[in-house]
């Protein structure tokens, strides 16, 4: 990878090197404080208000700084890094336009509970509020989409603020924290006093021990259930509870469905796994939820893409909801038993008492029959490339072991359906906000976090054009992401809605004028391949895999292909359009 790769030092070495109580600038305090938090990679873009910070980074090699080509690239990369590691991603941008370019990425992370520490510069304090050049009230703009934010007034506060920011970002329900640093603060000299004590913030406590009575009630409910279902979400992955979930399922024998963000939180090969639920969920998962008499939600937030029409959702089910955020319990779906706590802690306690759901024999057989009779399927073609086939091929050739990131659209749903995940943190996708432009830069972040792993970024021809400029940093730093473009020449998911819901009235979906993606890659110094049939596809993909650095593979697929099953907005999840296969 990158020749300028930072050599990671141990925390002790860093302390030795950095912890002298020097009088230094706010910028240097910032860098040292980041090191103390174990930061090894920062994504950013300079500008006037952060020039003191960038000056302090001159010749600095204790962490990597990756200069993206757009702030949106930087923040999505930081997000991908965080999703792939569980450590907060860090990104730096300048005031005004630099900061506002981060907004989409901050909102993306907020919706999916991804820990980020976002550092923005601001104009000097004396100019704040005067409509100064490149001034924007970024703390105000981002208040609804951050977990917390700071406007730093004194460089002496920086060590504490940074220490707190990392703590807040990565505890409880995780999320982005913004630190806005005026230019005079990054220039101000003061004595550096590192913040090493554990963070104590009044009123912000780790969740208490899970409620024992609720757990007993849950065990009881499992014993009585005839049609139990587990709905597992991103919370399982975020709390590192995949083993505990597997143990719980093994002990209780309850069928499980994983949401879009929960994919990888449970091994897809397990016979009790039913696939994904919701708008593009499997028949088995959706019917199981609808007919269940006990629905155990573990770290999912009952998103409307999962529940669809709320009044018709799992009407006969007793609902148990385990979540780290108490506000999620009962927010969308009335809950019979709510358990507030970290998923791993709760499941560990539950597993001590969990017993098989013995009354659910017939239910399990029904689910196995549904899995057999209604698998995900598509009509393959020997003439045109089918996107589902492409995803299956990628799955097979990578043994299901790649880190896969996606953009947003049809390709995202096909990847979720046809790439089978068996490990947590191998699936990176924008679920809550559904952000086009997220896919490719987030893969760069994941690859920076895991230089040794294969990272595949799956994009549509539309979304790829929202952050394609980051091909430059793959080339320059030899970041070996394999970029897949599923080219259907249209805004596919929009086309699908216009076909099915708007009566074939195709309005502004034609992507004519897209670049030649192979040439685009080459223009940036990245290898490019194109495939229009199966044979070319296998060959191009193999060549891309054999390429030591980054590579772009464009799969030209059938234009009119749709994602099935599909539930239309406003319908219940049992009203599935099954498609043509």
């Amino acid at each position: 990878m990158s020749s300028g790769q930072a050599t990671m030092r141990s925390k002790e070495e860093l302390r030795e090197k950095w912890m002298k109580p020097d009088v230094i600038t706010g910028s240097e305090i910032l860098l040292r404080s980041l090191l103390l938090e174990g930061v090894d990679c920062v994504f950013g873009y300079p500008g006037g208000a952060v020039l003191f910070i960038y000056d302090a980074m001159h010749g600095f090699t204790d962490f990597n700084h990756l200069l993206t080509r757009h702030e949106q690239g930087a923040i999505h990369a930081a997000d991908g890094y965080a999703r792939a590691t569980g450590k907060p991603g860090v990104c730096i941008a300048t005031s005004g336009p630099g900061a506002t370019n981060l907004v989409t990425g901050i909102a993306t992370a907020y919706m999916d509970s991804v820990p980020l520490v976002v550092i923005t510069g601001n104009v000097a304090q004396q100019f704040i509020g005067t409509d100064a050049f490149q001034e924007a009230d970024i703390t105000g703009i981002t208040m609804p989409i951050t977990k917390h934010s700071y406007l730093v007034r004194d460089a002496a506060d920086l060590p504490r603020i940074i220490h707190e920011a990392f703590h807040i970002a990565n505890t409880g329900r995780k999320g982005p924290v913004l630190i806005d640093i005026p230019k005079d603060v990054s220039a101000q000299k003061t004595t550096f006093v590192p913040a090493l004590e554990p963070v104590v913030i009044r009123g912000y406590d780790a969740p208490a021990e899970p409620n024992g009575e609720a757990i007993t009630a849950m065990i009881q409910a499992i014993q009585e259930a005839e049609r139990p279902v587990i709905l597992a979400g991103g919370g399982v992955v975020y709390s590192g509870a995949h083993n505990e979930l597997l143990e719980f399922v093994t002990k209780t024998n309850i069928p499980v469905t994983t949401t879009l963000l929960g994919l990888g939180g449970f091994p897809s090969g397990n016979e009790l796994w039913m696939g994904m639920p919701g708008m593009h969920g499997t028949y088995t998962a959706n019917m199981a939820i609808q007919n269940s008499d006990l629905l155990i939600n573990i770290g999912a937030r009952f998103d409307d893409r999962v529940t669809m029409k709320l009044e018709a959702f799992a009407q006969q089910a007793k609902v148990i909801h385990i979540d780290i955020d108490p506000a999620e319990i009962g927010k969308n779906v009335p809950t019979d038993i709510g358990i507030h706590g970290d998923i791993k802690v709760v499941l560990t306690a539950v597993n001590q008492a969990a017993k098989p759901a013995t009354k659910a024999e017939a239910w399990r057989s029904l689910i196995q029959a549904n899995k057999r009779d209604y698998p995900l399927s598509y009509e393959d073609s020997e003439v045109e490339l089918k996107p589902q086939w492409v995803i299956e091929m990628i799955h097979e050739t990578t043994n299901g072991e790649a880190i896969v990131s996606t953009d947003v659209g049809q390709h995202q749903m096909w990847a979720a359906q046809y790439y089978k995940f068996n490990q947590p943190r191998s699936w990176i996708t924008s679920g809550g906000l559904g952000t086009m432009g997220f896919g490719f830069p987030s893969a760069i972040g994941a690859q920076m976090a895991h230089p040794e792993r294969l990272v595949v970024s799956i994009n549509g021809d539309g979304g790829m054009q929202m952050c394609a400029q980051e091909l430059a940093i793959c080339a320059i730093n030899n970041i070996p992401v394999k970029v897949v473009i599923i080219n259907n020449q249209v805004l596919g998911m929009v086309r699908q809605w216009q076909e099915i819901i708007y009566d074939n009235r195709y309005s502004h979906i034609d992507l004519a004028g897209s670049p030649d993606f192979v040439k685009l890659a080459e223009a940036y110094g990245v290898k490019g391949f194109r495939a229009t049939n199966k044979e070319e596809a296998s060959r191009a993909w193999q060549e891309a895999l054999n390429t030591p650095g980054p590579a772009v593979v464009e799969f030209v697929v059938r234009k009119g292909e749709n994602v099935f099953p599909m539930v239309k907005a406003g319908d219940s999840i049992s009203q599935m359009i099954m498609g043509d296969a």
Partner: protein
Amino acid sequence: MRKHTIAVIVNDQPGVLQRVSGLFGRRGFNIESITVGQSEEKGLSRMVIVTTSDDKMLDQMSKQLYKLIDVIKVDDISSNPMVARELALIKVTALPERRPEIMGIVDTFRAAVVDIGTESMMVQAVGDTDKIDAMIELMQPYGIVELSRTGVTAMVRGNIK
């Protein structure tokens, strides 16, 4: 849907009022009045928010408020016997011949006249919302020139905190 009075203890940080009111706005919670000021402890402010909501919404409100890092305590004080007060300044047209009449109302309501102009009087009323509403209604016929209400501040009665 019922009226609730919620006391929120927050860190005295710049932007904290914006965080709280912004949360109400974007989650679709209603604010009838909001007051902020010092609390009994240095560094902490007390906000009193009057809102109309059902039980589910109230539960969400409190849980969402707790998610804000600067929020330390949330209390639905209207679930206890409480004292709730607001202050209103009412400037009414008051030519000399109407003044005795107006004074009569002021006395009945145990309000106070705090300023007199050649053609107007400023009346200060303190009390619960109903009392202030009634006072304003009675002042209306004389012609209210200017009106300013503070919104409700409140506390639970007795020794409990």
